[in-house]
């Protein structure tokens, strides 16, 4: 490897020796693809034909009027196939898998979005597919498990550790060290060992490249601020990086869960609870105890419920180039409700974190200024989780009745 993927002090490639040659091969394939203009052109073409790209930049006129400050624009990653920005990364990696001649893909998934996206890619490209998912997430996200299995993937419920996303990543790594000859690990976010952070951020940069052109076309200038939620950090990297050299303030919003003071959250950069460490193949801020053991995390949005964060964002945080905030579960549900009522848009609970912070700041900005919120995914397909978050009584009755019907069948 020419370099080991360091962003300041973060990143690197901390993998067991057995993976070294596989990672080198991946790095070479990625570098070759990136320097080949035809590869990006094919990627853009496929995303246009298969996944509604370019996704629109929607002017949120009602929300803008409601807050009476900055003009609010929403980047509609929810309109991707499978309902989230995850489609960008998996199709990109799918093209790379073809180039490498591998026949099997594996992936981790938390909320299930990345798993479903990977399963569609595998179906389309003719790869066999295994998805690792924490047993708790399997319970919470049954609809996504249903779709993965229908799409032909094998879903393995991981009963180790806290039985959530980080444990699914560990299990996917264990599969990879066993089967790397014919298997590619489609990591779902801009984390993990080099070259994954760089590669995932590169595929996701399609979001920001489009948004940069769209906002200038619509407003004649660049936005004042851009807001994105941050779990692993792939949608944030995707929309931020093409603006990195511009005079645009970039704001990442992490999961505040039940409040950072309660310890039940996943705020690694916006709160003091995390420390630099090395796990899952890379160095970044992890939520960990004094011994270096990873802590439990919590968010209403399963996709943000992760102990680590992209090394690219950790570095931008340290440089002060990206500002990090957090949004609590309660604030998130309120922002989602307002967005639905005002604009008829249904952001995912993950994406709604970005809306929370934008709504806090927009009223204090001038109508001459514009902001972009990255709506990284759609909420309507997560009806079970969203209905739960709203504690909707009619929905509860419906589920209870359905359960009774199944029980009596």
């Amino acid at each position, binding site marked *: 490897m020419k370099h080991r993927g360091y962003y300041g002090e973060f990143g690197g490639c*901390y993998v067991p*020796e057995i993976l070294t040659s596989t990672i080198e091969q991946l790095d070479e394939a990625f570098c070759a693809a990136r320097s080949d203009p035809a590869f990006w052109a094919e990627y853009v073409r496929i995303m246009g034909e298969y996944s509604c790209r370019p996704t629109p930049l929607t002017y949120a006129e009602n929300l803008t009027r409601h807050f009476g400050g900055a003009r609010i624009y929403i980047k509609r990653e929810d309109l991707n196939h499978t309902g989230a920005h995850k489609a960008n990364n998996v199709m990109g990696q799918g093209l790379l898998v073809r180039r490498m001649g591998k026949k099997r893909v594996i992936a981790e998934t938390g909320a299930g979005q990345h798993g479903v996206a990977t399963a569609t890619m595998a179906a389309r490209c003719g790869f066999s597919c295994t998805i690792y998912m924490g047993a708790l997430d399997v319970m919470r996200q049954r609809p996504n498990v249903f779709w993965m299995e229908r799409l032909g993937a094998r879903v393995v419920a991981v009963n*180790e550790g806290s039985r959530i996303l980080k444990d699914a990543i560990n299990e996917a790594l264990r599969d990879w060290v066993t089967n790397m000859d014919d298997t590619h690990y489609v990591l779902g976010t801009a984390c993990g060992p080099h070259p994954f952070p760089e590669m995932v951020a590169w595929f996701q940069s399609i979001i920001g490249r489009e948004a940069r052109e769209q906002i200038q076309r619509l407003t004649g200038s660049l936005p004042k601020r851009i807001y994105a939620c941050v779990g692993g950090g792939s949608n944030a990297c995707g929309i931020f990086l093409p603006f990195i050299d511009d005079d645009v303030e970039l704001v990442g919003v992490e999961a505040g869960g039940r409040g950072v003071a309660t310890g039940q959250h996943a705020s690694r950069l916006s709160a003091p609870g995390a420390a630099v460490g090395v*796990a899952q193949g890379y160095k970044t801020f992890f939520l960990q105890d004094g011994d*270096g*053991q990873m802590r439990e995390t919590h968010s209403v949005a399963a996709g943000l419920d992760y102990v680590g964060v992209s090394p690219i964002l950790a570095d931008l945080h340290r440089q002060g180039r990206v500002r990090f905030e957090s949004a609590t579960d309660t604030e998130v549900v309120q922002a989602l409700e307002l967005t639905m009522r005002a604009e008829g848009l249904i952001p995912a609970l993950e994406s709604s974190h970005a809306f929370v912070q934008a709504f806090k700041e927009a009223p204090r900005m001038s109508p001459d200024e514009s902001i972009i919120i990255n709506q990284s995914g759609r909420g309507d397909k997560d009806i079970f989780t969203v209905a739960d978050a709203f504690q909707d009584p009619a929905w509860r009755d419906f589920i209870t009745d359905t359960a009774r019907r199944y029980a009596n069948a």
Partner: protein
Amino acid sequence: MLEHYLRERLREKGILLMTHIVLGYPDFETSMNIVASMVAAGVDMMELQIPFSEPIADGPVILHANQRSLAAGSSVRRCLDFGREAAARFPIPFLFMSYYNILYRFGVERFASVIKDSGLQGTIVPDLPPEEGAEYMQAMQKHGLNPIFIFSPASSEARLAYVASCARGFVYCVARKGVTGRETRFSDQMDAYLARCRRATNLPLAVGFGVKDRRDVDFLRGRADIAVIGSQTIRLVDEHGPGAVGDFIAGLR
């Protein structure tokens, strides 16, 4: 010095045995009893694993032992104290094995200083390739400790040579792809791999991952210097209790 000890010992025995336990599993008292019976049964060297919450190179047996030990409240400090006590009580070399975050959080230099002071010989850190290990190697060298690095069947000749250039004490040869504790076929292919390892270094070679019985140890005789028994003794303790360990070890060669 570790390499010297191993060579002396090899003169008397055709092949050496290194065993692996997870500290605090099922509890620290039992861990010490296991060490005592392993030493009494003739084990030549031991690796003591400090449990970590994300042990990516370990298979189910060692993974569960890590989780159970942590759930029972074991701490890094307690593990270090255990190492000090074991090294003082028993006349064989001890190594710590753990993942890099444990050393990193403790402070790599401080970790090296503490284990030197405790009488241990070195460490095995499976998620730290030498390229990322400059600080670690410097600290180990400063304190006269052995950073044990790893060869794998997927490593090229150039890679084996590079890893060998960083290694001290001995080299740990992973027998196959995958994680610890699964079946390994000791075959002609393994023969060719171990011959490549032998050409790459003059240091003693340890072979681990899937070594589980006398037949496997016999296969390694003449091809390697140290057979590493990890998951199998943990399985044995799980199924038959710590008392079964001595006879098992004694029957391996």
